[in-house]
């Protein structure tokens, strides 16, 4: 799984893989914590995974969107902000349809796979 932070500007936007050192000129993950929790005494076999990322915005722009590249099915996924509020996210079909006019799906995979920064603009008009 890799995290990509997006800073969308009015015309031109860019994204980069946070796995690299400050690819956006200052946006980075400081820490990743994976909690593997068997919290139920009634069913100790059941395990809940909490992936917790501490993100630091070193750039001069607001981060407006977070895009996460996932390579496995995450059962019952919920995403929470640090104050405990649940965040909504776009489903994959919606993203696919959204990206289709601009970027070839294979290109996206290749671009992220090589950890390079790529540009997308006009997503929001």
């Amino acid at each position: 799984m890799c995290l990509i932070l997006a800073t969308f500007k009015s015309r031109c936007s860019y994204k980069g893989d946070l796995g690299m050192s400050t690819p956006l000129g200052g946006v980075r993950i400081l820490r990743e914590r994976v909690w593997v929790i068997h919290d139920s005494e009634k069913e100790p076999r059941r395990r809940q995974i909490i992936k917790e990322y501490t993100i630091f915005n070193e750039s001069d722009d607001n981060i407006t969107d977070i895009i996460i590249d996932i390579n496995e099915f995450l059962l019952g996924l919920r995403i929470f902000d640090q104050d405990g509020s649940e965040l909504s996210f776009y489903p994959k079909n919606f993203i696919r349809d959204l990206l289709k006019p601009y970027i070839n799906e294979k290109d996206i995979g290749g671009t992220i796979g090589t950890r390079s920064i790529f540009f997308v603009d006009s997503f929001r008009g």
Partner: protein
Amino acid sequence: MAPGRYFLWIPLGGNRQIKPRETRLLKLVYFDPKEVKSVSRFVSLYSIASSIPRFELGFEKERRDYDTFFIIQAPMGYRVKYVRERAEMDNTVLTKEHGFYEDVHDYVINVRIPVIHSKSIYFSAKYDILPPKVEITLFYLSIIPLYIMAILMLASAVGGSFLPPFLTQILLKGYKEIIAGTATAALAIAGLIRDPLLDRSRYYYLVAGAIAIISYFIFLMGLD
């Protein structure tokens, strides 16, 4: 894109945007549906009585510039048995000098996988969730006397000549009460077990109860 690979796009909205120089904690919460394997029942005293689930952790870290922590937490009262299989960086075993460490406690395990620039790190481990010690102790404290009584009653019912005569006399004198007590205790304990990891132990109690009941029928046939 590779099969199974997809994006999650989280719009932060106007009031949740991450401002410059700001840190933010983001949590992804989900269940791991991967099936677990039970530890073989002949491995330890624990696995005889309980079905111990075994889980695997695998991790490959490439060109990241942040630390990764794994925290494994057992349910209250349970314990974790942790075994590291692999912690390597390009065929070099990771040590504390590299910043790799493991804090292993009874109910929580903490593993730190460090940043090593331009190196790939591979980590894998296995862990078992063990039932509370007190429950295993109670299992052995109860099952052993129950089996001894059930087998003694069966032996005395079939007229086992290996029992001392005085013992046979004592057993036959209070046969119905002892049998009823043994069978009731065995079946009641089997019914009262609620710990899912101790499901297997129910069968041991049921067998002890069945031996006691069969002894009783043999005893009755002997009276005829």
